[in-house]
């Protein structure tokens, strides 16, 4: 039930604090999502959507950092395996 899916903001439709909505794309499928909890997110940003509303903005820099750290760890492991 707490499933939340990442999607990219394609277009803001309405910036109202209660009725704010945007078009969000999920793996090629576009849906209209409520944006009251992420009013500062911009077009092109990624958000996590649950039950029709965006609940958080995805931090792209942080996401990249984790993957890069892991890639280094992985390389070290592979060297050890040789």
């Amino acid at each position, binding site marked *: *039930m*707490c*499933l*939340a*899916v*990442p999607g*990219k903001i394609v277009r803001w439709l309405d910036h109202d604090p*209660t*009725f704010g909505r945007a078009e969000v794309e*999920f*793996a090629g499928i576009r849906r209209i999502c*409520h944006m*009251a*909890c*992420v*009013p500062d997110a911009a077009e092109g940003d*990624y958000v*996590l959507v*649950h*039950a*029709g*509303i965006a*609940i*958080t903005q*995805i*931090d*792209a820099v*942080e*996401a990249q950092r*984790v*993957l890069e750290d*892991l*890639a280094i*760890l*992985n390389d070290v*492991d592979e060297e050890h395996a040789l």
Partner: protein
Amino acid sequence: MKYVDEYRDPRLARSLLHEIRQTATQCWVLMEVCGGQTHGLLKSGIIQELEGVVELIHGPGCPVCVTPAEAIDFAQELALRPGVLLTTFGDMLRVPGSRESLLTVRARGGNVRLVYSPLDAVELARQNPSQQVVFFAVGFETTAPATALSVLQAAQLGLDNFSLLVAHVRVQPAMEAILQSAECRVQGFLAAGHVCTISGVTSYEELSARYGVPIVVTGFEPVDLLLGIQDCVAQLESGTASVSNQYQRNVRDAGNRHAMHIMSDVYATADRPWRGLGTIPSGGLVLRPEWRQFDAEYRFQRPTPTLLIECADCRSGDVLAGRIKPPACESFGTRCTPESPLGAPMVSSEGACAAYYRHAPKSGPHAVSITNTGR
């Protein structure tokens, strides 16, 4: 899908598994709080891979499973009243109340409609002014902002035919209840990542300090889950216990202040019975008195709840509290299956019994994503 596929990379998962095995000098007992994590751990084969290194106890994080039968009974009763349209999430449909489920109520004429979002229920109310639309609001802090927003929208639209039947629960008090129980074996928590997008990280600090347990905010994909486990194991090995965040791409330390503002506008905390766990102090949310006209409990007279007799063959209370694993229940897989469930944990997509039934250890074809994927 971006931000999903990268965190399923079997190579990264394997090097994390290796790290964890290197770090652990004994078998640590961790609880993953959320049922979505339980499914991820079983489906990816992580539980099997870490046998003897980390034991994972499955937490109560299945909102559908902990919704009390009397709330489900009331929802069913509302669905049968003339002029009422009961709306809820798909997960709720097959969960047994004390006698039957919303599915059977619908089959005998109950007006039940599944919606993807509570805001769709607001739209239904707007389009159908002659019907009383009730949204059966279950879920953790992840879901509560959406239902709170539905009240704000209905108020602004001036709708007098929309209300919520609120059965929201709060995760942190349930974690504390588990830590307080005498038979608690949990040495560290993987906190529910999506709940934390709303409630944040710092709110766990007191709990971690008071009970001396590491609490690591953890996501749902295999790499996320392993990062959480690795952090927890490293803390336990070094004798420290703090709160850390291994789901930083989605979780800010302070949570989502916009969402929390909407929630606290609409809801207050209250003691709440959890199915299988008993009443948990501050374990739930109720509508504030100023929103009473949107409260289904107030709008429709609720019948005095009958004394509940839970099915004696179902050990869901023990499963939800992490006292037993589903296969230890005698009904598991025999009298209780997803097709004919005796208890909620076998129904829900987040229930631990359903997770074991679907991705049972050693069920070959399922346990593929880490172990069998070639480089």
